[in-house]
């Protein structure tokens, strides 16, 4: 975990230093996209070669759906509260 955080922090500092170099930033965005494609392709291979996971894909999908619904509903309900208490009145003023 510490490695992930340290590497990302280093990236943020480096990114801030080069924030005005538009060409580098555009190149960086492209690299991110391809790194993600590559990693998810590799993740796909890792899953595809793993028979246990392949057999349980439908179950994993249902778990994912349940977690998503919980997370989205929780966020929306709390957002309704936040909006009413902190944002709505200010709009009317």
């Amino acid at each position: 975990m510490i490695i992930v955080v340290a590497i990302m922090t280093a990236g943020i500092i480096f990114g801030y230093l080069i924030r005005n170099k538009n060409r580098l930033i555009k190149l960086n965005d492209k690299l991110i996209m391809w790194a993600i494609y590559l990693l998810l392709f590799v993740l796909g291979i890792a899953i595809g070669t793993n028979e246990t996971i392949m057999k349980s894909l439908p179950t994993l999908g249902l778990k994912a759906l349940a977690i998503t619904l919980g997370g989205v509903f929780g966020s929306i309900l709390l957002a309704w509260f936040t909006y009413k208490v902190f944002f709505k009145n200010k709009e009317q003023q």
Partner: protein
Amino acid sequence: MKGSLIILSFFSAGLILGYYVDLPDFLINDKFSSYALYFLMFLVGIGVGADTRAFKALKSYNIKIFLVPLTTIIGTAIGISLIFLLIPGISFKESQAVGAGYGYYSLSSIIITETYSKSLGVVALLSNVMREIITLLGAPLIAIYFGKIAPICSGGATSMDTTLPIITKASGKEFAIVSLFHGIVLTILVPFIVSLILSL
């Protein structure tokens, strides 16, 4: 939407290839993908550091704008805590880690796969793609019934890019900056919160 379809097709292509074809070992090598993850984390960091829109949004709004990402983080955690009791075969920690992707499916699934388990990585990928799709389809209704902040919180980290247009349409232009800011803050936090939860 187009972006997530492309990403899902890369994942599916790998899945089909891995299932039907005997592949050379280096492609299945775990070390290769952890280095690729570190590389990706560095690149994402650069993108975040170079993006000054968050500072600008902060200047044009006040400190209250932080309440919005905070709402998403707490709301997601509470919602999942409640529903987790109904899901068999997943621990509290695992369900929270999946939720802490806040729609940022690519990064969260990769981090979870590399640092925890492949099957939870798949759950994270599917769950966070669903979060984006639900927001894309539901934002207008969500804004009507739950107020103008709600579509932003529903979108999670995607509220800065893929779901920004529909959120702006549903909540109004005055919430575009809030949406952008919210997405940037969550994008920064996803790797930290996910790895924090998994290390507990």
